[in-house]
């Protein structure tokens, strides 16, 4: 075994959170090394040229929740941050459609076509969700305190949050409680009547989660998706030019600028622990790197059940991590296209192809798709959240060609009989057939297709069970409980071993937040 150079901190995993933590630590003058298993940085926020000339944000595909202080503090605009607006949502229906844009009046008129009542309610609903999103923000931006044995700073954080909650109006408090506990369908039923509108909104409550729109708890996931803002505008979504991988590269450039070392194709086998303290890492090739601290950007299952031996950890903690729910529920289908899809209900090119396209005609579509998954099958007619990145950024595809990204739900990790090549293709076919119902030309314009099942997400990207959030965003595993009670402040039971991935507070999405807050916590106690 060779002994290589010493570092202040080693970060396992070059996903966007690992890179963010690296950039913050390097910015504070620490000697940092990031070790990435794959040939490319970004983890699930990665751009790859899967077919010659066609580039894909292979997994994660949109940006909304990236924290504005991370953007500023890591000087991301200087290193290539370019977030193009995704300004609309198009829900194709069998004989009609629903097309919402960022223009309030246009959207009012559009919803009015379907339901005058909903059109008016919608104008009230958006600001309310924005207000609640703003109200919840401080919780997301606080290092989760240990409620069982709070330190002084934990008590101060709790007091601050309590004061914050006290300031909420009665109305906001009521809705916040409802959002934390209800199903997205029940919550939206209190507001709206037009099914395609409700189903499309409810869909953001099931993304990345093994729940249906009628499952209690899904309303919180919906709120999670409302908390993003771009340039101060809440509920704004964007697409990084060059794909999400380019965003990861932007953070990597910042980290390098501050002096971090980054190695790819450097899979870590184990965290080296001596006398209960992390002292470095061993790579799969036998190389060892020493460091004062080790930080894992991987999910909790990998961080604690693979990278370290169970015997190094308290048994109750091991049990908590084993019980941590990380069921994969989604797949991804990436298509290289010869032209643009032609939707029967709104033919031709147009602004509806520049935003999200949601296959969510009604609750039953979503709930039936979930029913399939509950019983161990992929959805025969899945829910899909689609974007056409090449329409926003022509550099993603050769001239005149396009790329299409389909986030597909549901595809359970534990599928009956296990995933294999023929099941993967059958899943891909189900996606294309569902899409063809609304855009029949799709079958004629597919040049290549990549189908990723939860099993593929696990094998290729290291997402245990293919869960895109490193663990479901359900109440029992949020805030001080993420990933386990007492260990939600980025520390772990092993001294000098920390965690910074989406399996920590405040959870998944391209936020940079776990990476940032972990680094800030580490710097505070260093």
């Amino acid at each position, binding site marked *: 075994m060779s002994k290589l150079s010493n570092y202040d901190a080693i970060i396992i995993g070059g996903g966007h959170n690992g890179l963010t933590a690296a950039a913050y630590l390097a910015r504070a003058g620490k000697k940092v090394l990031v070790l990435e298993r794959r040939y490319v940085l970004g983890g699930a926020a990665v751009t790859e040229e899967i077919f010659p000339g066609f580039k894909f944000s292979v997994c994660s595909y949109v940006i909304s929740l990236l924290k504005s202080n991370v953007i500023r503090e890591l000087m991301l605009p200087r290193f290539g941050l370019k977030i193009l607006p995704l300004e609309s949502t198009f829900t194709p229906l069998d004989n009609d459609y629903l097309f919402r844009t960022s223009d309030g009046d246009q959207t009012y008129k559009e919803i009015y076509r379907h339901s005058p009542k909903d059109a008016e309610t919608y104008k009230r609903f958006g600001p309310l969700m924005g207000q609640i999103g703003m109200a919840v923000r401080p919780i997301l931006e606080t290092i989760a305190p240990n409620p069982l044995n709070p330190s002084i700073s934990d008590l101060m954080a709790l007091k601050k949050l309590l004061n914050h909650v006290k300031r909420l109006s009665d109305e906001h408090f009521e809705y916040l409680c409802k959002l934390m506990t209800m199903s997205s369908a029940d919550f939206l039923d209190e507001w709206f009547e037009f099914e395609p509108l409700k189903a499309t909104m409810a869909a953001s409550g099931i993304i990345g989660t093994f729940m249906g729109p009628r499952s209690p708890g899904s309303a919180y996931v919906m709120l999670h998706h409302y908390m993003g803002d771009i340039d101060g505008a809440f509920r704004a979504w964007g697409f990084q030019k060059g794909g999400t991988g380019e965003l990861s590269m932007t953070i990597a450039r910042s980290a390098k600028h501050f002096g971090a070392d980054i190695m790819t194709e450097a899979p870590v086998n184990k965290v080296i622990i001596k006398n209960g303290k992390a002292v470095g890492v061993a790579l799969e090739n036998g190389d060892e790197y020493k460091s004062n601290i080790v930080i894992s950007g991987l999910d909790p299952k990998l961080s604690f059940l693979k990278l370290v031996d169970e015997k190094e950890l308290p048994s109750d903690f091991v049990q908590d991590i084993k019980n941590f729910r990380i069921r994969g529920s989604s797949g991804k289908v990436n298509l290289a296209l010869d032209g643009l899809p032609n939707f029967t209900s*709104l033919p031709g090119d147009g602004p509806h192809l520049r935003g999200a396209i949601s296959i969510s005609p009604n609750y039953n579509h979503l709930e039936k798709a979930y029913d399939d998954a509950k019983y161990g099958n992929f959805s025969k007619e899945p829910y899909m959240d689609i974007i056409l990145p090449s329409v926003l950024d022509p550099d993603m595809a050769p001239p005149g060609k396009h790329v299409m990204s389909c986030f597909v739900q549901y595809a359970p990790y534990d599928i009956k009989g296990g995933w294999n090549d023929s099941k993967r293709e059958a899943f891909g076919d189900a996606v294309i057939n569902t899409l063809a119902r609304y855009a029949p030309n799709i079958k004629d314009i597919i040049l290549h297709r990549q189908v990723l099942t939860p099993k593929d997400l696990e094998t290729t990207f290291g997402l245990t069970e293919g869960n895109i959030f490193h663990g479901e965003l359900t109440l029992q595993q949020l805030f001080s409980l993420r990933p386990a009670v007492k260990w939600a402040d980025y520390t772990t039971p092993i001294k000098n071993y920390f965690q910074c991935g989406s399996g920590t507070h405040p959870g998944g999405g391209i936020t940079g937040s776990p990476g940032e807050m972990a680094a800030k916590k580490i710097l505070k106690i260093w």
Partner: protein
Amino acid sequence: MINSHNPQKFTGHTQLKTSPFFERTSKLNQSQEWRRWGGYLAATQYDLHHDNEYFAIRTKAALLDVSPLYKYSIKGPDAQSFMDRMVTRNINICEIGQVMYTPWCNEKGKVIDDGTVQHLGENNFRLTSAEPNLTWLLDNSSGMNVNIKDDSNNIAALALQGPNSRDILNCISSKSLNNLKFFRLINTKLNGIPVTISRTGYTGDLGYEIWVDPSKSIEIWDMLIKSGKSYGITPVGLNALDISRIEASLILLDVDYISSKHALIENRKSSPYELGLDWTVKMKGNDFIGKKALELEKKSPSNWKFRGIEIQWESLEKEYKKVGLPPGLPSMAWRTSTPLYFKNKQVGYATSGCWSPILKCYIALAHIHADYADINSCLDFEIKVEHFRKLTPAIVVETPFYNPKRKTSCPN
């Protein structure tokens, strides 16, 4: 198409002039928002929002109708010496095929207007300007053998700006644009139609302006849209242009300064030095209108500087947080004179500003008293939060705010 629910034919009448591209732009303008520009209707934005148009300038290709610019032809044996006398730049070193950005002044060295001088051929120039300048040119040409003609209506102009602009033009131009340097022009043919292309623009990005006979304007528009489709070409209006020109720190007449021709009081007039245009004033060359006054000003510099400022996020956010709001960022460029203070004493005013979507920063252009205008100086910028005036810190920074390498580089 989206407007299938709105089958009535849109018709309108206007006393304003319409550009040679209006037949196309009027149909593309989804928002039907127009601004007046030199007596013309000019698209404010084509979409309902300008975001996508802005990003076309910075990440793809933007097509702007800039026909309302004033254009003057200056020809004849004395054309070169005439131009050299009229503007502050040294036109004697402006090669044929070169373009120079320049202000021009009155005898007191105060700026009348700014624009470009295109050296088209031997004693053959074209001057572009924001305002009419024919009388000023004619009045100053007595005794010189020059022929000055207002070409404003005889030349249609398009700006094609953005990182993909070169690739699009290379698809249809008989000559490659790969070697055309920044502020140079060539005569070429686009699918057989003769045009002049200058590597100029008002966005601070890689970009070109295409000068063409108005009778060919629709053909040129259509071929650009067609060949630019796979490069993301997007018709762009003045809202998006305004943001990009502030990022590029390019001044705008009647917004950042007032022409000395129609300023009511002396204080409203600005010299090139007071507009940050020191680099455009040739003191070593021949005499030009305003030179003597500017020589004096150089010896005893003006009290005013023109600078870029960055309004600091943290404090801005805090002010809005106090009233329970997210930071109030301008969704488009503003043009309201806004006071700047140093310890409660007003030391300047910002004339235009915007949130820069690419820099993720709130920026503005400002006239600042020289004593407070050093780079990195911290001033207080006035904002209104819920109708109440507040002060929030702003730092004086180098300009241009945004200056990508591609603006001036050539491939290889």
